[in-house]
């Protein structure tokens, strides 16, 4: 390459030497680039491995397939499970199944569709049960969200991105992990698409990229709608930042956003109509509560203190540095986005309530950039030249330290033990679709979503009624009960834009005294870990029913007994009740 060439000019000896030196340096530079690229690939793959290990390995008992579900620790998680199972069985999301719609067959399926459809497609493709793919999918989406945030930060500074990575581990630690274990799963899916949309926002000027951008934004709406509104808020903040601080308005960006908005409206239109006539009509206005400090939606709240002071202080310092850069008009999109999502997570104090609390579960992703900025500034004080190998190893070491320090120990299977699961599957496969099932006391039945797994009309005895009966030493004919429906209003379509609400129009009450002899099947827990007296009471009721001659036992395992009522309406329990001795 540096030899004499025919044609233009010839190298002298000195020039050839210089040329060889420059070529050598260029190859050396390329070699360094290749090494950096490989190093980063190895770093990212190790990061993925550690995050997956932390998030799903123990939760799933180091397996993918299970005889009964692992990882479901609350009703919300089980809601997602049976919705996926219903979709798996029925094949579409058109109508809510009658057993959770008070028997109505025309109730529009208004639940957020995205996660269930992803899960069921994965279940069919992998051959695993939807209950096995669901938690795995949510952990995977969380991990990919972290990687998306990584590449967003990398656009600012590669070293900051490497140093931000250890904070991602908190996704699966402390209160942040309850987003998965306690079932804030649709929120996770919404956040995943939100982050992807923000990453693509930077590239909106590219020809045609507004189309995938619009698809991602539509996906936010169908995954978890509150994230859609937070995303809109961020886009406004992003534009205002340029307008107010940099005194510019990127008209090309505005035009692309407008085009995207049209596409989003078209793609999401069908579900938008359903959402605003169902969820929003019933819950929307009442969601706004000033100064909410506890969640009334049954999930744990994550706090900044969950990072531990060792990691929180660097995050706060990094946030302060980012604020400085924001006001100096030098902030990168990742800092603006992280600051915005920190602010959104604190909006519970000014009216956003539960939706604000939910965004905190992804603070380990959003706020990671602040940690990276802090470490980077510290590194600059001690290292004159950046050393990617040292930074990568240090980052992975901190990551492993975080995992070892904070990982939950001794995770058990969760709410759905093999005995109840097997009983539910028996009910699902061996009883008529329209069967009415009555559940007496069970230790975990306050997490009542599990009672919908058998896909039968489900009613359960409320604990306060049972306790009162036991106190009075009587087995009554009528029990104070709750009839399970999936929602409080049961919307149905009168026309494309107009909806009625069965629950409101027919004034259906879900909690009242019921004659238990009007049911087809009865589920009894034979033992209790917390209230043995209530389990004994169960067995006493069971004995009375068997003694009536109208019922017989059709299923039994170590924990659960199921009786079938051969003649509903007859006296399976005497009308006057039975006094206990």
């Amino acid at each position, binding site marked *: 390459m540096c030899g004499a060439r025919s044609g233009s000019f010839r190298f002298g000896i000195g020039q050839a030497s210089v040329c060889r030196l420059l070529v050598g340096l260029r190859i050396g530079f390329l070699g360094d680039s290749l090494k950096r690229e490989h190093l980063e690939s190895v770093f*990212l*793959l190790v990061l*993925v*491995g550690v995050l*997956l*290990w932390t998030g*799903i*390995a123990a939760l*799933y*008992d*180091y*397996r*993918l*397939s299970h005889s009964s579900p692992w990882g479901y620790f609350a009703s919300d998680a089980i809601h997602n499970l049976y919705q996926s199972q219903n*979709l*798996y069985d029925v*094949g*579409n*999301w*058109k109508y809510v199944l009658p057993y959770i719609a008070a028997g109505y067959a025309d109730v529009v399926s208004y639940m957020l*569709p*995205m*996660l269930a*459809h*992803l899960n*069921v*497609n*994965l279940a*069919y*493709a*992998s*051959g*695993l049960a939807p209950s096995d793919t669901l938690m*795995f999918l949510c952990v*995977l*989406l969380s991990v*990919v969200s972290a*990687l*998306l945030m990584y*590449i967003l930060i990398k656009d600012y500074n590669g070293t900051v991105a490497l140093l931000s990575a250890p904070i991602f581990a908190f996704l699966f630690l402390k209160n942040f992990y309850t987003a998965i274990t306690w079932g804030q799963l649709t929120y996770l899916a919404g956040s*995943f*698409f939100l982050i*992807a949309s923000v*990453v*693509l926002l930077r*590239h909106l000027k*590219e020809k*045609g*990229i507004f189309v*995938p951008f619009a*698809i*991602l934004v*539509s*996906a936010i709406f*169908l*995954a978890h709608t509150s994230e859609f509104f937070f995303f809109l808020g961020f886009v406004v903040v992003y534009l205002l930042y340029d307008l107010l601080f940099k005194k510019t308005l990127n008209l090309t960006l505005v035009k692309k956003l407008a085009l995207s908005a049209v596409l989003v409206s078209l*793609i999401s239109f*069908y*579900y938008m109509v359903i959402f605003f006539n169902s969820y929003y009509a019933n819950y929307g206005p009442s969601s706004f509560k000033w100064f909410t400090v506890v969640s009334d939606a049954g999930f744990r709240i994550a706090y900044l203190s969950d990072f531990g002071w060792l990691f929180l202080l660097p995050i706060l310092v990094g946030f302060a540095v980012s604020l400085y850069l924001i006001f100096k008009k030098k902030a990168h999109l990742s800092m603006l986005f992280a600051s915005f999502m920190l602010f959104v997570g604190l909006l519970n104090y000014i009216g956003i309530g539960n939706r604000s609390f939910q965004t905190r579960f992804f603070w380990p992703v959003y706020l990671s950039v602040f940690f990276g900025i802090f470490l980077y500034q510290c590194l600059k004080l001690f290292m004159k030249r950046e050393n990617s190998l040292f930074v990568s190893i240090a980052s992975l070491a901190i990551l492993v330290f975080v995992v070892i320090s904070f990982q939950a120990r001794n995770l058990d299977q969760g709410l759905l033990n093999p005995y109840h699961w097997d009983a539910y599957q028996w009910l699902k496969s061996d009883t008529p679709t329209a069967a009415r099932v009555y559940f007496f006391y069970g230790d975990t039945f306050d997490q009542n979503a599990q009672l919908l797994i058998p896909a039968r009309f489900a009613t359960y005895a409320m604990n306060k009624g049972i306790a009162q009966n036991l106190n009075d030493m009587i087995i009554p004919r009528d029990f104070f009960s709750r009839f399970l429906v999936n929602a409080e209003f049961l919307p149905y379509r009168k026309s494309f834009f107009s909806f009625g609400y069965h629950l409101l129009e027919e004034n259906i009450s879900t909690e009242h005294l019921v004659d238990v002899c009007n049911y087809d099947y009865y589920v009894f827990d034979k033992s209790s870990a917390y209230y043995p007296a209530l389990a004994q009471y169960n067995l006493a009721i069971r004995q009375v029913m068997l003694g009536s001659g109208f019922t017989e036992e059709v299923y039994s395992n170590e924990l659960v007994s199921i009786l079938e009522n051969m003649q509903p309406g007859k006296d399976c329990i005497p009308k006057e009740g039975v006094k206990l001795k």
Partner: protein
Amino acid sequence: MNYRKEISVLATLFIVLFIIAKIVFFLENFFVVLRLVASLFWLFVLPGYAIMLYWNESLDLPKRLLLGFALSAAVLGISSYYLGILGLHIRYHLFVIPTAMIILGIVLEVKKKK
């Protein structure tokens, strides 16, 4: 655009992700893990990669892979929702949607080259 290099990266990624998955789920059967990883590639990696090829000059491979993953998920979820409402049982969606996306991606790339 070096297609061979990118395909070899995808192949390597598949193998490495399988190894990671087998370590994470070390008590699980080899073929169950293999099928899961293959499913992930079929549903979430290949369709998105094919579509994002259109922007291979402005976005590097890691960005295209990750954004492609998100795009695959978005298209899969949205299309599956609508196809179900239109009457196609969801068990068929995993054949229709990724195939359509991959073909579309290839067509867009070929048209761009022309």
